[in-house]
C-alpha cells in the first residue's frame, strides 16, 4: 500500500485528502486533466471526464503522464478498467486534424483510416464534407471540408467522440494598435499567465473567479492581438464598464471603442456588443448579425461564457477562423452545454482555484450565513394549497423576510450593503421599508449608472437590486449582500452574487453574504442546492434561525 493523498474511485472521481503532506504536489499534478468538482475543507473531489482529458491533451499532456500521476499518488490499487479508459479516451483526441491545404482550403486529415471512415459515414457529418483528396503524406487520408462548416464539424465530431484538433490557423484580422497602459498599475501574475496561455493556445477559455479581474485578461489578450476586437457581453451596464476599464487600462481612447446595444449602434475598431442585441429576432431573422462581418475582426472576446445563449453558439460556429477568448468564473452550465464551449470557443486554457486567489489576497474572504424564517400559519396554508408554479414565489416573498432584512442591515451599520432579489414586488416593498433606492429592469441605464456611481463613492450605503446586477457590475465597495430570492436553484447565480462581494476590500475586511429562506418550503430546497455549490467551493456556511439574527 502506497501512502498517497489520492483515492481513485471506480466511478472516475478522485478524492484528494487536503491535509496530506503531498496534497499540494498531487493537486498540481492532477489539475491539468481532472475537473475540480468540490473543494470543501478536508477532501477535494475531482472528476475525470472526457472533456477534461481532452483539455489535457490539447495542453500537451499524454495518457502515460496521466496514468503515472494516478499510480504515483493513489493510496489504493487503481481500478484497471479506469486506467484503460483514460488511455482510450485520450487516444481519441487528435486522431483527426483540421488543416489548411494550399489548393483545397480546409481539409480533415487523419492517419487512422478506420476512424476517418467511421466519422465520414456518420449522418451528422455527411453534409459538411466534400471529395476525398490525396494529402501528399504517407499513410494519411484526407477529405475536403466546406469552409463554412469548420465549427459545425468540430461540434459534430465531438459528439461522435472523436474531437478534432484544429490546426487550420486564424486570420490576422485588421490591425489596430492596442497597448496596455501600465503606468499606474500592474497586471497580476495570474492574469499575465492566463493571457499568455490563451495566446499560445490560439483560442480557448480562461476560468477565473468573480472579482479576479477577467476584464484585464481580455485587455491583455487584445494588446497581444493588436487587431480590431469584438467583445460580447451580457448587458449594457456591463458594456459601459468594459469601455471605462479599457479606456483606463489601455492606450485606446473612448472614440476608438464603440457600443452596439439596444440604444446605440456604433461600429468602431473595438466594439462591445450585448448578447441580447445580437440574438434579437425580427420576422424570423437576426437583423444584427451583420455586425459579425462588419469588420475583419482579429479577436472575439466572450464575457461570461457560461451564459452564452444558444443562437450565439450557432453564430460562433461560423467564426472559427478568428481567435476566440472565453472568460468565465465557472464552466458549469445549467443547460449542460459544456461540450459546445469546448468545441466552438476552445479548450480550457487557464484555471485558478478560487481559494488560491483568495489566499493571495486578490479577492476578499466571505462569511456565508443562511437565515431561516418560519412562515406564519396563514401563509403556510396559502402555500400548501398553491399551484406548484406559484409556490416558489409565495415562499420566497414572505413578509417575514422584510423584518429579517431590516435587522441584518441594522447589524452592519456603515457598511455598504446590497439587497438582491428576484421579484420586483418584493424589491419595491423592501425599498420602501428600508428607504433605499431600487434598481430593476425598468430603471433607465442612466439612472442605474448614477446609482452605481453613488454606491461606489459611498454616497448611497444601501441598494436594493434585481437580477440585473447579477453580472459584471463592478461594485468593489459592497461588503454585505443579503439575498432574499433567486432564480430557483441556479448555482452560477449564487456564484455571481457572491462574486459581487469578493472584490478585494480595504484593510482585509471580511465580506458577509446572507441568504434568507423560508423553512419547509421549496425555497429551502433550492437554497440547499445553491448552498451546496458554495460549500463545494470551500465556503463553509452557517445556518441560523431568524429569531437569533442580531442577537
Amino acid at each position: 500500500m502506497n501512502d498517497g493523498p489520492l483515492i481513485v474511485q471506480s466511478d472516475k472521481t478522485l478524492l484528494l485528502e487536503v491535509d496530506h503532506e503531498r496534497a499540494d504536489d498531487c493537486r498540481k499534478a492532477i489539475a491539468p486533466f481532472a475537473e475540480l468538482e468540490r473543494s470543501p475543507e478536508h477532501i477535494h473531489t475531482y472528476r475525470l471526464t472526457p472533456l477534461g482529458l481532452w483539455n489535457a491533451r490539447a495542453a500537451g499532456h499524454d495518457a502515460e503522464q496521466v496514468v503515472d500521476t494516478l499510480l504515483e499518488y493513489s493510496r489504493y490499487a487503481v481500478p484497471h478498467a479506469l486506467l484503460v479508459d483514460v488511455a482510450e479516451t485520450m487516444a481519441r483526441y487528435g486522431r483527426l486534424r483540421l488543416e489548411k491545404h494550399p489548393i483545397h482550403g480546409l481539409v480533415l486529415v487523419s492517419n487512422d483510416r478506420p476512424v476517418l471512415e467511421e466519422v465520414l459515414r456518420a449522418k451528422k457529418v455527411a453534409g459538411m464534407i466534400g471529395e476525398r483528396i490525396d494529402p501528399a503524406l504517407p499513410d494519411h487520408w484526407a477529405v475536403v471540408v466546406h469552409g463554412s462548416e469548420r465549427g459545425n464539424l468540430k461540434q459534430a465530431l465531438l459528439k461522435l467522440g472523436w474531437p478534432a484538433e484544429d490546426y487550420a490557423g486564424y486570420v490576422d484580422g485588421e490591425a489596430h494598435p492596442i497597448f496596455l497602459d501600465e503606468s499606474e498599475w500592474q497586471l497580476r501574475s495570474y492574469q499575465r499567465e492566463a493571457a499568455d496561455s490563451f495566446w499560445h493556445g490560439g483560442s480557448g477559455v480562461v476560468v477565473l473567479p468573480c472579482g479576479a479581474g477577467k476584464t484585464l485578461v481580455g485587455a491583455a489578450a487584445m494588446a497581444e492581438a493588436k487587431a480590431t476586437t469584438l467583445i460580447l457581453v451580457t448587458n449594457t451596464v456591463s458594456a459601459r464598464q468594459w469601455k471605462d476599464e479599457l479606456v483606463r487600462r489601455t492606450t485606446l481612447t473612448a472614440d476608438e471603442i464603440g457600443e452596439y446595444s439596444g440604444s446605440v449602434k456604433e461600429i468602431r475598431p473595438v466594439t462591445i456588443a450585448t448578447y441580447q442585441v445580437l440574438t434579437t429576432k425580427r420576422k424570423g431573422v437576426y437583423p444584427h448579425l451583420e455586425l459579425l462581418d462588419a469588420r475583419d475582426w482579429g479577436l472575439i472576446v466572450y464575457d461570461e461564457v457560461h451564459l452564452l445563449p444558444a443562437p450565439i453558439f450557432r453564430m460562433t460556429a461560423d467564426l472559427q477562423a478568428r481567435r476566440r477568448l472565453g472568460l468565465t468564473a465557472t464552466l458549469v452550465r445549467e443547460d449542460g452545454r459544456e461540450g459546445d464551449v469546448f468545441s466552438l470557443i476552445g479548450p480550457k486554457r487557464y484555471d485558478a482555484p478560487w481559494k488560491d486567489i483568495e489566499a493571495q489576497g486578490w479577492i476578499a474572504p466571505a462569511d456565508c450565513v443562511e437565515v431561516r424564517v418560519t412562515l406564519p400559519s396563514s401563509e403556510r396554508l396559502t402555500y400548501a394549497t398553491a399551484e406548484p408554479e406559484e409556490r416558489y414565489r409565495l415562499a420566497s416573498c414572505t413578509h417575514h423576510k422584510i423584518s429579517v432584512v431590516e435587522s441584518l442591515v441594522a447589524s452592519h451599520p456603515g457598511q455598504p450593503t446590497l439587497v438582491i432579489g428576484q421579484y420586483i414586488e418584493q424589491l419595491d416593498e423592501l425599498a420602501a421599508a428600508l428607504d433605499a433606492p431600487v434598481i430593476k429592469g425598468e430603471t433607465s441605464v442612466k439612472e442605474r449608472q448614477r446609482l452605481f456611481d453613488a454606491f461606489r463613492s459611498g454616497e448611497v450605503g444601501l441598494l436594493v437590486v434585481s437580477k440585473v446586477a447579477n453580472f459584471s457590475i463592478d461594485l468593489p465597495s459592497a461588503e454585505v449582500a443579503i439575498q432574499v430570492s433567486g432564480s430557483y436553484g441556479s448555482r452560477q447565480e449564487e456564484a455571481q452574487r457572491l462574486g459581487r462581494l469578493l472584490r478585494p476590500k480595504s484593510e482585509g475586511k471580511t465580506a458577509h453574504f446572507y441568504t434568507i429562506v423560508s423553512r419547509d418550503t421549496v425555497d429551502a430546497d433550492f437554497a440547499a442546492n445553491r448552498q451546496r455549490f458554495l460549500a463545494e467551493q470551500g465556503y463553509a456556511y452557517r445556518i441560523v434561525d431568524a429569531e437569533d439574527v442580531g442577537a
Partner: protein
Amino acid sequence: MATTGHRTLADQLRSWSDERLSRLLRERPDLATPAPHDSGQLASRAATRSSVLRALDQLTRFELCVLDALVVVGQTSREGLAEVVRATPSAVLEAADRLVDLVLAWESTQGLRPLSTVAEALPPGSPGTSGLHPVSPEAPAPAVVRRMLDELSPAARGLLDHVLASGGTATSGTARQTVLPEDAETPAEELLARRLLLPRGGAGVVLPGEVGIALRGGRTTADPVDEPPAVATSAREPSLVDRAAAGAAFEAVRRVELVLDQWGLHPPTALRSGGLGVRDLRATAVDLHVDEPTAALLVEVASAAGLLSTAAAPDGTPCWIPTDAFDRWTAAPTAERWLTLVRAWLDSPRMSGLVGGRDPAGKVWNALAPELASPHQVEARRMALDALRTLPVGEVLATGTGVPSVVAQLEWRRPRRPRTRADQVVWALDEATALGVSALGGLASYAATLLDDRGDDAAAALAALLPPPVDHVLLQADLTAIAPGPLESQLARRLQLVADVESRGGATVYRFTPESVRRAFDTGWTAAEVHDFVGSVSRTPVPQPLSYLVDDTARTFGTIRVGHAEAFLRADDDTALTELLHHPKAGTLGLRRIAPTVLVSSTPLDVLLPRLRDLGVAPVVEAAYGTVHVARPDLLRARTPKEQRGRSVAAARETARVAQVVTAIRAGDRAESGRPAQATTTLSPSGSMAALREAIEAGESVLIGYVDNHGTSTDRLVDPVALEGGTLTAHDHRSDDTRTFAVHRITTVRAVPADA
C-alpha cells in the same frame, strides 16, 4: 501377459481390489448408477458405446494415442505397445495402466486388448488417432514388411505414401486385385500383389496397420506424442500480482454486497424461464460500474454461493432475492466473504461467459438462466487454474500469447470434448481475474493456497493484503462524509442508514440528506443518538449545517401520527363513548380513545358489530372504509437452497454411495457363484445382454435360444460381433453368415466350451 490374463473382462473386474473398483466407479460415475447387479453387468455396462465415449473424454491426447495404437495393433503385450508408440516407454506403460484402470482396455489371456467398442468410438480424424487401420489378421513380421517396402518401385512407394496420408483407404480402379508380384504391371498392382494394400470388398483397398507402422518407422505416429504444448510466459513481480489480485478481490466482494443489498430492497423479477432480465442486468452493471459480463459473473457467483435465490416478492411475482445466508455473509470479514464466493465459483458448473450471447436458435442467454450450466465447466476451470499454478514463481502468462497457449495445452489434456473447451478456458481465466483469484496473468499466492484446499490460510493471506479497515470518517460542510478507506462492516451499515452513499471504491463518500436522516429516525434512532454517532465516527469537528440538518429533521419528524386500527367508532355524544370504553365486557374489543368523539378498535368490523350489539348499543356501519397499512420496506429473504446447507455432506454422501455400489456388486457376484450351474441357462434380459457382451469381448461362441418370426424357438450357435440398439450382430454357425438377432427374442444364452 498371458500368465496374468483373464478369460473375460468380468473376471478381471472380479479380481480387482475394492479400492481399485471404487476408483473406477469414481472416475466413471455412470457405471455406478443404478448400482449394477454383479461384475458381469458392470463389465457389460463399461463396454456400452455411450459409457466408453464418456470415458474417452477424460483422456489426454497422449493417452488417446496409446489407446489408438492398441486398437491398431489389436492385442499385444505392454512391451509391444510401448514399442509402437513414439514416446518414452515408461510414459506409455503408465498410460496403459490408466486405460486398464478405466476399463477401456483389459488384460486377456493373449495380452492387453482394447474393448471392441473403443475402435468405433475413435473414428479416424478424432483427436489422438493416427489414421492407421488395424493390423491385418495374418500380418507378416515387421522385418518382412520392411523388406517388401524396400523392393517397391519409387512410383509404388509414392502411391503408398499418398494412400497413408489420405486416410489409408483407396479404390483399386482397373488394377487387378489378385496378382503375383512378378506379374504386377502398375504401382497399384505392385502393392496389391505384396499385400501392402488389401482388398476390402468391391473395388476398395485398405492399407493395413502393419504397413502404416512400418512406413512411420515402426511407430503409429511420425511425431512424438507425449509432450504437452508449452505455455507462453513473461516475468512479473509476484508481489505485484498479489496486490493487483487483492484489489480485484476486494472490489468483487464489495460489488456482490452492493448488488444484493440493492436487490434486498428492490428485487428484480425472475423471468418465466428462470433467468434475470437483460434490462435488470444492464442496470446492475451500470450500478456497479462494471461491464455486463462482469455483472453477470457476480450475480452468478452470488447465486452459486447460496446468497441469492428466487422467492415470491410480497406481490407474489417470483423475484431474485438475497437469502438469509447473505446476512451471515455480510457479517464476516472481507477475506472470508471472498473465500465463500470463490469456493462456490470453483465448484459451479455455470457458464456466465455465455450471458449476452445467443443460443443456436438466436435467443439471448440470460444471466441466472437454469440451462446455462455445463458439466465440463468445473473441470475446465480447475484445469485452467492448475495451468496458472504450475507456472514458475515470478512468471505470468505473456500478454496476448499467454491465454491461447493455455488453451492449446488444455486442448492437449482433454482433446475430445467439449468443443467449447477453448471458450470455457478463456472464460475461466477472465473470471479468475474479475474475482481476484489471479491478476496480470498470474495466480495470486493466496489463491494457490486455496487450490491446495487450505482455504483458511488463503483467507488469512488475503486479509494481510487488503487495506486495513478504518474506523472514522471526515465530515465536511457540504454535508458529505468521506471514509478514506474501507469502513468496518458494522460501522458502514450504520452509516449507510443515516447517509446515502454517493461514490464507492477504495474510499466511500456518504451524503447526509433530510431523507437519509429521517430514515434513521424511522428505524428508531433519536436525534441525540444521531448526533452522538456522527460525533463519534468523525475525526473532524461536526460542521454546523449538519447538526442543524439533524435537528431540523427531528423537528418535523413524527408530527403526524399514523396507526393501525380495524374499525373506528364515532359519536357526537362523548359520554356514550366513555361509557362504552369503561364497560366491563368491552375489555376484549381493544378500544382506544384518540379524540373525545372517536374511538378506534383492534377488532375487525364483522366481529365488532355483533359484540357491540351484545353490549346493548345500536351501532350503524358508517362506510366500508379501508384500513391503512403501514409497512416499513423490509428486507426480503429467501430460504437457502438445500444443496448449499452443507458442502462437506455432499462429499461424504458421494463416498458412501460408491462404497455401497461396490458392496452391491460383490453381493451379486457371490449370488452368481453360489447359484447352480444349470440355472444360468435362463437369463434375465440384462443377464443375457451381459453374457452376450462378455462373449463379444472374449471372442467366444455362445448358444442362444431364439424365437423367429413364426414363433418357432430354435437354438443357434453364434459368434457375437456387436450388440447395439436392441439387436445382436453375430456370425451364425448354422447359416455360416453374419446375421442380426432381435435381443428381445433371445430367450437363453449359454456359453459353449471352446472345445465343443
